[in-house]
């Protein structure tokens, strides 16, 4: 009797979990198929973006490899001269020298050492022609997003009498508690991300853990890619440059730059 009940239990168990086995197999197959399609389409999107950049640069004259450094130097200074002719505050970024500068009418009003940076593989594969079509002239900011308010403005109702006025007191703008991260999209279809950090370890933990703004931004990008992929369409690939600078300076630049500011970059 005892043996029979064990056998019944086993056969019931086998039947019940046979379904689970099939589910696991089908589920794994779906995941692997989805991942394969996702990988194929995502890498394809990068290749398409590179081809597009090359097509856009085809009209320019071929660049001689021995002159490329001089031409980059010329394009860098020329772009800054162009920025200086305008009235707006502009940004110049030299990734080689790891310097980020805020310029106003040709005068460097702020200069900061870049603590850390990374650039998409796209930029590492550029040839001279693609480089000059991307960075040969100042870029224009098209879209601004930030983890903190760009231009914070308080609205205060005037006190009705002296007693109410005395109650008001000045408070210091907090810097330490904020996660300063801002991102801009340029007219040449790539993004610049500026992260405010005060130490390298802080930058790594913020970026890897994807706190707050960055995490939401990454999730949004993944969601957009998913939307494309379930429709078997290539997702949009936007190359990006991520720069980490001291937090105060990241905040000062964010506040100072106009929404459609000019930016010059040298890689």
């Amino acid at each position, binding site marked *: 009797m005892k043996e029979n009940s064990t056998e019944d239990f086993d056969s019931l168990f086998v039947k019940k979990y046979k379904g689970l086995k099939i589910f696991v197999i089908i589920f794994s197959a779906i995941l692997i198929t989805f991942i394969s399609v996702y990988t194929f389409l995502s890498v394809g999107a990068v290749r398409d973006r590179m081809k597009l950049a090359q097509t856009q640069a085809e009209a320019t004259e071929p660049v001689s490899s021995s002159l490329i450094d001089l031409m980059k*130097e010329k394009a860098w200074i020329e772009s800054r001269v162009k920025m200086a002719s305008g009235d707006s505050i502009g940004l110049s970024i030299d990734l080689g020298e790891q310097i980020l500068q805020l310029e106003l009418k040709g005068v460097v009003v702020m200069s900061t050492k870049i603590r850390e940076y990374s650039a998409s593989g796209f930029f590492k594969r550029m040839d001279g022609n693609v480089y000059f079509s991307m960075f040969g002239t100042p870029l224009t900011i098209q879209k601004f997003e930030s983890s903190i308010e760009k231009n914070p403005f308080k609205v205060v109702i005037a006190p009705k009498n002296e007693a109410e006025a005395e109650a008001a007191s000045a408070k210091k703008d907090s810097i330490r508690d904020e996660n300063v991260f801002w991102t801009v999209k340029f007219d040449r279809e790539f993004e610049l991300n500026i992260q405010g950090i005060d130490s390298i370890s802080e930058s790594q933990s913020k970026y890897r853990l994807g706190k707050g703004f960055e995490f939401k931004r990454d999730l949004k990008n993944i969601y957009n890619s998913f939307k494309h992929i379930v429709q078997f369409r290539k997702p949009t690939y936007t190359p990006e440059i991520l720069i980490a600078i001291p937090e105060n300076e990241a905040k000062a630049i964010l506040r100072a730059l106009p929404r459609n500011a000019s930016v010059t970059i040298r890689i």
Partner: protein
Amino acid sequence: MIRSLLIYIAVLFVGILFFISMILFVIPALQESTLVLPSLSKAQADAEGAETQKVKLEKEITTLQTKLDKYTPSNAYIIINTTDNHFYLYKGKNLIREGICSTGKNERLVQSDGEKEFVFHTPLGVHRVLRKQPNPVWAKPDWAFIEDGLPIPPRGHPSRFESGTLGAYKLELGDGYMIHGTIYKRFMGLNVTHGCVRMGDEDLEIVYKTMEVGSKVYIY
């Protein structure tokens, strides 16, 4: 049997982890990896006359650099950071003095009846010193009374004029904005002003003596 169940659950769990790590880390890394990307670098042979082109480029770079350098004033100028409330006084490329200051509080003051509105913000951009004056007397504008909850006196009324509030010197930038001193020393380094730039006594004296009428003031 329990062992099989645990294996299925483990497979499911590993599968989900694999999926998430692929989406979050592996595929983005693959997208950025130069290994899977086609090269755009076409090795281009030097065109004829590369040496001539090189000389021409070097000359152009020198000309452009000279042009860019000319934008930096050779006389005194001041740079003001309104986020950090810091100033830098330069003469040409030389930093003469730096220190803390106070700038606009970025506030919109609305009169309780909604009749008038005042914006307290330090204007960004390039300005010039239009006028310099020692021992300035502050002619209080309407907002100074509204902010203190006081009735607005008529123009020219003695209660509108205050000595000492602006410190020992003022440098006018136009539209009512100034660089001046302050009696509210404890607020130095904070965004508390109505748009003017406040400085400490010693800093202000040096700025006043170094800057001339026409000197540039860069505010960001």
